[in-house]
Every structure is written in structure tokens, then in C-alpha cells.
């Protein structure tokens, strides 16, 4: 029998970002035997994938894998999770960092049983950011049904109002704490993994595609929420202006991506995402017509290629090679997509009930530079310097990726972090 039950060396790892990338790095390192602190700025873990209805190409729900990951956290005392937490500063060198973390108030403490009495009492409704503003939620809310930690949040908007008081009075467990203040935590860690993820590119910046001007032009991430059982429509895909079941939908690929004026790079996931979303619509509406305007269909690899082939078999899905020049309003709240077929040269005006912009991904760090000594590409992606070590970027903070590759990459980054802690 071996006597040594611990990992070969000690030290702790700070993982910044609780999306699928950060979760993966944190869990993989902790299951080797290392102490990990996982910091997430939102009130729940799961990040972008928590907002997705299904993963491509398996069409399986992301909450399935998240549930396993949350259970792994529950069963592993080596992981400490901080939500509503933002890293303010990381200083030091590989093996010896000091991190300053600000924890913003949830206004709900650990006594919360998730009973929902606060939400029932609350009268104010606030914009539901989880659903990209497509509906509203109570000022006291659970971000989504599978939220982990399963604890309510009180919107700062109702703090100091009568509604705040109502929530506090409704909670018989003393969990609502309206005078909760932000606090700062200092941590000593040996390695830092930045898994700060991505944001959908702001589609209002793409003038010619009409987003924000016409209600029936939505982004691909909004489509995920529309199709999700926990979304604003309970999973029914309806066009925003009048809740009509769409008879025709156009997908505009590379909305912002591969475009010098917006994102010069390819966002990696949008082709597969649109093919997947086409299946959402087709599953709900047997007669709906779908038009996909693309430059190249990037569905590489046996799995994605197979999926593309299957989607192609659907006679109601039309693929048009051509970059969309304009999206404008048409009669009856419809939308017209104007493009040129790159092969035939033919000008196309396709009027549809609804348009989905396949908007790309931008690293979160591009809009909020990270408070540490990191190399950053002109697009805001963090560049890994393995010779220097100590701090690493994982997942989409590092480059545009799909979930599978993100998880591979993030598993590898757990090892890079561990290497930093190993005294050779």
C-alpha cells in the first residue's frame, strides 16, 4: 500500500472565469490534487455555454455536462468558488502571485434556501440579461433554473426601494441582506489561468445588417435563448415583433467576422452554430424555409462534416454562397436580405420573417483589459508565454474555439499551471 496520499507538490491555482473553460481547468487541476480558487464575475457558473440550448453537433444540452461539473465541484473540497467576484489586480511572479479580488454584493447571503419567496414578493421587473433583454425578470431572481450556486440574487436596482424591503421581509430565513457591501479578498497563489472567455460581437456596430433597428433581426446567441426551454418563450421560436411562428428565416454568416471593419479573424463556431440553429427551427416548423448566406462553410472534421451533410439533406434549407450586403425591413414586419451569389453573380433579395445574424466572438479582455502583466494580441486575445510561465490563457480568452477544443485546451492549461507549482 502506498502511504503518500497527497499530490507530489503543493500550491494553489487561481482560475479566472467560471465558464466551461475555467470550470474545466479548475476541476482537472483539483482532481489531480491541487487547491484551486475559481473566480466568476457573474452570480452563477457556466458562462456562455449555460446560455446555449444545445451543443453542436450532438444536439445535446450543455446543462448535462455542467451538472456533472457542478457535482464534481460539490464532491471536491479542493475547489473554492467565488461568484460575483472580479480580479482587481494580480502582482508577483510565477509561483508567487498576490491576487486582489473584489466580491460584489449579491444582497443574498448563504442562508438562502432557494425557496423563491423573495421573487414572489418582489413587484419590480428588471431586464433579463441572461435572455439578452428579450424578457424581464423579477428584481429578486434566480439567474436561470440550473443556476449554480442555486441561490437568488437581488438586483442593485431594487436595493434601497420598497421592493427591496418587501424581499427582505418575505425571506423568513434572514437571507436577504440589503446593506451588503463589496469586499476585497487577497489571495496568494502560485499560478493563474485566465479563462475570461468571450462576448458576442456588438451587432449594432454592423450598420448594414440592421440589428437594433428592426426587431426581427436577432443574433445567434438570442436564438439560443429563444430555442431553450428556460428561455423567454419557453423554447418556442417566435419572431420578436409579433410572436409569430416564422415561416422563413435567413442566417447571415460572418456578421462582423472575417471583416476588416469589425473582426478580421474567423470566429470559429458560427457556421456550425447556424447549421445547428437551422435544426432547431426545422424541428419546430415542418414547413419553414431556411436560407443560409455564407462565404465558406467551416465545418471541418469528420463530426462537423457529417452534421453538415445531414443538414444539407433537408430540402427546406438553402445554402447561398455570398456575403450579405444589406438587411432591411420589408412589408408585414418581414426582413429582406440582399446579397450577391458569388458563384452565379446573381443579385438576391430574399424576404423572410426573421433574420439571424451569426455574430462572432470577441475576447472579453478586449473591452475590459485584465489587471495583470499579460501579452495581448491586437484583437484582444491573450498570448501564452510558456517560457515565462506562471500565468496562462485558456479557451476563448486565448483564441476563438468551439467547446470541444476549449475543453482540450483548458485541460492542458491545468497542467501548465501545475508545472509552475512543481519545484524541480
Amino acid at each position: 500500500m502506498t502511504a503518500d496520499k497527497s499530490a507530489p507538490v503543493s500550491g494553489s491555482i487561481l482560475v479566472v472565469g467560471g465558464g466551461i473553460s475555467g470550470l474545466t481547468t479548475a476541476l482537472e487541476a483539483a482532481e489531480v490534487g491541487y487547491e484551486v480558487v475559481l473566480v466568476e464575475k457573474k452570480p452563477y457558473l457556466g458562462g456562455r455555454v449555460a446560455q446555449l440550448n444545445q451543443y453542436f453537433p450532438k444536439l445535446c444540452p450543455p446543462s448535462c455536462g455542467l451538472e456533472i461539473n457542478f457535482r464534481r465541484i460539490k464532491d471536491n473540497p479542493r475547489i473554492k468558488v467565488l461568484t460575483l467576484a472580479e480580479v482587481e489586480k494580480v502582482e508577483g511572479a510565477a509561483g508567487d502571485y498576490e491576487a486582489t479580488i473584489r466580491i460584489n454584493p449579491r444582497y443574498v447571503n448563504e442562508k438562502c434556501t432557494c425557496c423563491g419567496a423573495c421573487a414572489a414578493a418582489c413587484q419590480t421587473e428588471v431586464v433579463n440579461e441572461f435572455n439578452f433583454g428579450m424578457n424581464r425578470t423579477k428584481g429578486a431572481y434566480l439567474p436561470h433554473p440550473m443556476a449554480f450556486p442555486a441561490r437568488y440574487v437581488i438586483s442593485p436596482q431594487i436595493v434601497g426601494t420598497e421592493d427591496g424591503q418587501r424581499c427582505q421581509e418575505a425571506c423568513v430565513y434572514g437571507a436577504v441582506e440589503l446593506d451588503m457591501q463589496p469586499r476585497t479578498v487577497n489571495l496568494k497563489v502560485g499560478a493563474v489561468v485566465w479563462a475570461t472567455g468571450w462576448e458576442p460581437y456588438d451587432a449594432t456596430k454592423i450598420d448594414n445588417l440592421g440589428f437594433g433597428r428592426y426587431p426581427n433581426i436577432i443574433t445567434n446567441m438570442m436564438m439560443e435563448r429563444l430555442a431553450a426551454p428556460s428561455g423567454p418563450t419557453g423554447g418556442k421560436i417566435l419572431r420578436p415583433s409579433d410572436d409569430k411562428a416564422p415561416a422563413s428565416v435567413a442566417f447571415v454568416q460572418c456578421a462582423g467576422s472575417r471583416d476588416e471593419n469589425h473582426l478580421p479573424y474567423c470566429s470559429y463556431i458560427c457556421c456550425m452554430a447556424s447549421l445547428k440553429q437551422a435544426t432547431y427551427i426545422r424541428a419546430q416548423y415542418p414547413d419553414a424555409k431556411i436560407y443560409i448566406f455564407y462565404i465558406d462553410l467551416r465545418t471541418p472534421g469528420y463530426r462537423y462534416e457529417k452534421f453538415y451533410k445531414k443538414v444539407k439533406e433537408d430540402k427546406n434549407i438553402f445554402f447561398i454562397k455570398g456575403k450579405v450586403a444589406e438587411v432591411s425591413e420589408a412589408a408585414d414586419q418581414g426582413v429582406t436580405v440582399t446579397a450577391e451569389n458569388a458563384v452565379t453573380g446573381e443579385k438576391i433579395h430574399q424576404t423572410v420573417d426573421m433574420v439571424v445574424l451569426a455574430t462572432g466572438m470577441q475576447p472579453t479582455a478586449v473591452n475590459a483589459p485584465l489587471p495583470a502583466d499579460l501579452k495581448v494580441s491586437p484583437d484582444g486575445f491573450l498570448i501564452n508565454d510558456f517560457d515565462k510561465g506562471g500565468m496562462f490563457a485558456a479557451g476563448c480568452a486565448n483564441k476563438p474555439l468551439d467547446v470541444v477544443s476549449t475543453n482540450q485546451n483548458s485541460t492542458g492549461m491545468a497542467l501548465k499551471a501545475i508545472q509552475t507549482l512543481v519545484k524541480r
Partner: protein
Amino acid sequence: MDKKYGMYICTGCGIGASLDVDALCAVAGEEGFPVQQHPFLCGPEGVAMIKKDIAEKGINTMVIGACSRRVNFDIFRFDGCIVERANLREQVVWSHSRDVFPKLTEEEIASGDAFDRVQMLAEDYLRMGMARVKKVSLPEPYLLESLSRRILVLGGGMTGMAAALDAAKAGYEVTIVEKTGALGGHANHWRQQLPTATPYEDLLPPRVERMIQSVQAEPKITVRLETMVARIAGEPGNFTVTLKKPGEKIEFDVPFPLPPEMRVNEKGEELDAETLQARYKEYNEGRIDILTFDPDGEKFGAVVLAAGWRPWIPEAGQLAHYGFGDLPDVVTNAQFEKIAKEGKIKRPSDGKEAKRVVFIQSPGQGDDSDFAYTGAVTSLVSLKQAKYVREDYTDGKAYIFYQHMRTSGQMEYFYKSLQQDPGIFMTKGEVVQVRQNGNGLVVEADNTLLGEKIAVNADMVVLATGMVPVTVDDPVVNLAYRQGPGFRDNDIYDGYCDSNFICFPYETQRTGIYAAGAIRRAMTVEESVEDAAGAALKAIQCIESVNRGVSVHPRSGDMTFPDFFFQRCTQCKRCTQECPFGALDDDAKGTPKPNPARCRRCGTCMGACPERIIGFADYNIDSIGSQVKAVKVPSADDYSEPPFRILGLVCENDAYPAIDMAGLKGLNFSADVRLIPVRCLGSVNVIWIKDALSQGMDGVFLLGCKHGDDYQCHFVKGSELASIRMKKIGEALASLALETERVAQFEIAIDEYDKVPRIIDDFVASVEELGPNPFKGF
């Protein structure tokens, strides 16, 4: 463990308002469990109350009647105690609103013939909880007698070297086994490598030489050239590996299982065990059986499979329209790379400078796919090779015909930089034909961006063919496992050794063996090297988990493992055959030999065993069976119209959370079902179903994950195996004169909580239509 029981009932979150808590406490009394209630059990006072009992009364085995076990997991964890969570909140009061299931009125109570379905449900869950804690024990870890922390890396190419270096840097000893006489693999034949960093424009000198030097300089790495695996026997943490020279025949070459056609007689009937054994011996003559370990074998803790790929070569006539095989100047990209590595690009036919080169990405003939096994790699390789043409000849011209230029992510910059080169022409298009034209070639293409039909003269044509994973030809790992030497189900993945899971890309059906690089997907060097780090991490993690005596993913940290009561084994081999992870090897008689470190604790063996001799410390035939038997089944003796009782065995990974969500959302479903979470539907033993029916329950359903090629089962085969067993149970039911419709299996995904009420209520309705179980009351 001397069990001291206790029950704690929370009356918060609507439990006390909905239920008669005194009556619940009385249920505890029936079994002699001391009981306490608290209005806020998960709060500091409630927890202190339990801790006080633990400290003062020595309570160590308890039922907590409160919320779901999915929440407050840390609050109700007490070291050294057995804790069962009776889910009175999500699955009783939240999903059975008093608006839908009203409390009894005074008159109804007075009548004596009315019953409160919700109260009955809660009471049953407490009874079931008590029954379970009586039957389970605290797990003790399975520890190996000796543990090896060494990692075996199969393949000395870029992926294998990267994995070895990464593991070594984390402090682990590594042996690289490479079949050829040199490290480096395919990368040795490359002129240049793709860019890996901003601005993604210039090609890089191959990294392979530096990588080889690093490997050679690393004292923790041993390199074994001209070596391959004859067999890997044993289990993670303690693999016994026999290595050999390629081509050698040795007695420790791994034996192969009999192919299906040899397992049957002329009539197609399965042969008897003795004949099978004789045939197996004959089939594997000269090879020692898997249960004999090589005394000279080397010990390893885990394996990284990085054996890579071979270039896809079209068979004769397969690409006749491109002249491959007939026209010597039509080559594959791998052949072209070798030519480019040797110096200026010259065409094979006559050594003339190849200044006009056409690259073809797709096989054409109406298909817009790239060649097989290409991924995004071949788009990038063609761009790289087009640059070679331009490097070698200032007047050189490269043409790329593609259907979809696959330069995902930041590699788009590389593509863009080539678009600026006036000597490189790229167009979407379908190449129709390549033919000889005098001293050169002509490439004809349709539907291009430059015109409907075009023809290009070329000195050479390069077919951007793919990278075939070597697992297509050979299992490589040569596992001395009864289920066979290779990874299972690679056919789902086109022969790659890939994971089925998007969330868990390193999970395969062979614990402790992690694939990396092009053996599991077409990847660039950069991607492969990154993948290697992940596989190395998983190998290390597996070793450390085995060292702690706990399971790896998905039941990470689980200390239980299957225990066998061999005296009653009838050598039916079902457990060995059905284990999704090949954890069991049977001997000549068919008695299983467990390898607990290979096991992932799903319980499929337990579900398979007709003799019911397999179980876990906290999860076994008796623990679930006792829960089933603890359900009170009212009969006509109790009420004039007794309620139905239906058992639901639900997958704890997906179905159980979905039911919790239904509760959270306030969705109501029948109060006549009794749900028991199971580790996986694969662990469901049909005896539980028979138990339920024979004690008068009216129906049984299984609720689990989707199966098929895109299975969502975390244990690969569980829900599929359950569905096979359910089909077979029909006969047993018929022999009891029960309708087969009383037993059913349904699929549900975790996010389909909105479907929970319909699935359950429809099944209840269908059973009610059949009428009560005739055994009720006997």
C-alpha cells in the same frame, strides 16, 4: 460500523405548510429512528442541532427529510456519517401543489376511506430513506499494493514528445515508445510549419528538431526506438507492459477475442463455453492468455496514445478523374511536402522545375466535402505549400481550388496574407478533370468564382488528402483485456480514437489511456501539441486518483467499487461483456476478475448480474431493493379505491436533476409515483422491477438518457443496455400473467424538465387503464 440512526425533518421551504409533520415523525418512530424537526434545517441552528446529536448521541446514520441532495450538499455532509437525503422539497411539496392535490377535509378524514396522496408520498420517501441507510456502509477505498507513477507515451512524433515533456515538467517519469528508428514522426519530412502567433503570416522553421533536443535533454524521459507494445495488461496505476521490436512474434503478443463468425456453429448458434475456449486457444496459439502477466513486463501508471496518422493514399482508380496513379506529376500533399523538403520543387516525371502548381481540396464529383480525414488541416497545408511555390520561384504560380476554405479562427490571417500575393490564385470550384497536355497537365474546373468553366495549365497537381488515424489499421494499445485489444466503438468516429463527449474530450471507454493528436481528429502541430498537454494531465490525474483509491470521471472522487460474491457466480460472463469500460476479465471458466482501477463505478455489472452478486458499499441490490420494498402499497383492504403505486428508477445524472427542475418550476406530476435515483440506468437490475411488481406496485418506469450513436449516457452504454434488458423482461412479466405495458423506459434530457409531468402522468394513466396489479394485497 455500529450504526446509530437519526432522522431530521426540515419544515421550511413549504414542507411544514404542506405536510403533516407530526405524522412524518411518526413514520420515523415506526422504524425506531429518533427524529427531530427544524424550521430551517440548513441554517446554522439546524446544522448545529444535527452536529450536537452526532457529538453527544453518536448518531452516525441519518435520513434528512428536506431538500434535494443536489443542493446544500456541503451543509449536510458530515464526516464519518451515512447521510440519506429524502427529497421532500423538490420532489414532494414543490411538485405537488396543494392547489392540485388538496389536503383532506375534516369530513374526508372522518370517513376513514380518504387518503392524502402528497402526505403518503412524503412518508414513503422517509421509509425508503430509512431502508437504504440500513443497507449501506461507508466506503473504503480500493488501494493498489504497488503504484507506478510512470507514464507510457505511445508515439514519438510531435504529439508524443509534447506529452512526454509536459508530464516530465510536472515531475513524472515518462517512457516514449516509437515504432520507427527516430523521434519526430511526420514532422521530420516538413520544410516549414504553419504560423502559430500574430500576425500569422510567415511560415516557421519546423519545431521538431528543438523538440527532439528537449526530449533528449530531459532526464525524466526514456526513449525506446524501434519498439512497440506487445500488450498492456492490468489496470491504471499498475499496468504491466510488454514491449517488443516491430515484426517480432512473442508469447506476450496480445491475444484477440474470437471474431463473431467463429463464435457460432454452421447453424449460426452460439457455441458452448468449452468449444469456445478451445477455439480461442487455437485462434491465439503461441500467445499467453491475458490473465498471465509478463514477469519481465515494465510497470506504468497510465498511457498517452499519440500514435498519430498515416497519409491517405488513393487506391488505384479511386481518383481516376484526377489522374492519380497514372500521371506521375499528380501527387498527394504528403508527397509534395517531401519533395519541397528536399530542395526547390521539381516535378517527379522529369525533374523539371514545378512553377505552376494546382492544389485540389476536394474529391469533386458533386460533393463539396474535402477529402476524407482532412479536418481544417489540409486547407492550411495547401496554403503553406502554395507559399513554397512562391518561395522557390519568383515567377511561380499556385492555384488552389477549394469548396470551403477552412482557415478557422486566427488562421484566417494566414489565408488573408496569401490573398495579397499576386502569384497565388484561390477560388471556390469543383475540379472536373486533370489530364496530360503535351509536356504538362491541364486542370479543368466548374462553377468557380472566376467563371463557369475554366482550365489551368500546371506543372504539378497536389491533392490535399487527409491524415488517416493509425487506429484504423491497428489497435496500437494492444490491451490485454477480455473485451479486446483496442478502443471500442471507433467506428462511430470514423476510426479515430475520439471521445463521444463534447464536455469531456478525453473520456474514452478505456480508463487510464488518453489519446492525443491526430489519432483522434485531424489536427495541426499546434493543436496536437496543445492536445498532448491535456492528455498528459489526464494521465497524471488518473494515477493520482488511483493512488487515493477514488474513481476518475464522471464519478470523480467516488471511493466505492464493485464487490463480487464469487461463491454464487454462475460464470455467465454478462458483467465482463457488458462493462462499458472493459474493467472485468474472465478466466477460462468465465469467472470475472475485477480490475477496480479500470472501473468507473457506473454499476452496469450490477445491473447485468442475474445472480445479484455484485454491489457497492453504498449502492447495491439490497439497498435499492429495500427501498422498493419500503414503499407502502395500499390495497382494497385499506381503501375502497386504493391509489396506484408506480416505481420510477431514474438516472441521477440527468433525469433526477430534470425532475428537481420541474419541482423548482412548480410543475405538478402524479403523486402516486415513487422515484429512486440510480447511478446509471445500466445499473438497474431487473430484480428491482420484479420486486416492485410482486409486492403489488402497478407499474415501473425507467427514465434515462438518450442512446444511439450520439448517446448522452455518461457511462456510454447504460441507457442502451437498460433498454435491451427491458425488452427481455416482457417474457418474465408474461409468465406472471402481467401486461408488458406495466414496464417502460423513457428518454429525457436534463433540460427537458417541462416534459417531466407529461412523461410521468401519461405513464400513470396508461397503467391505470390496465387496472391494478392483480398481486396487490397478497
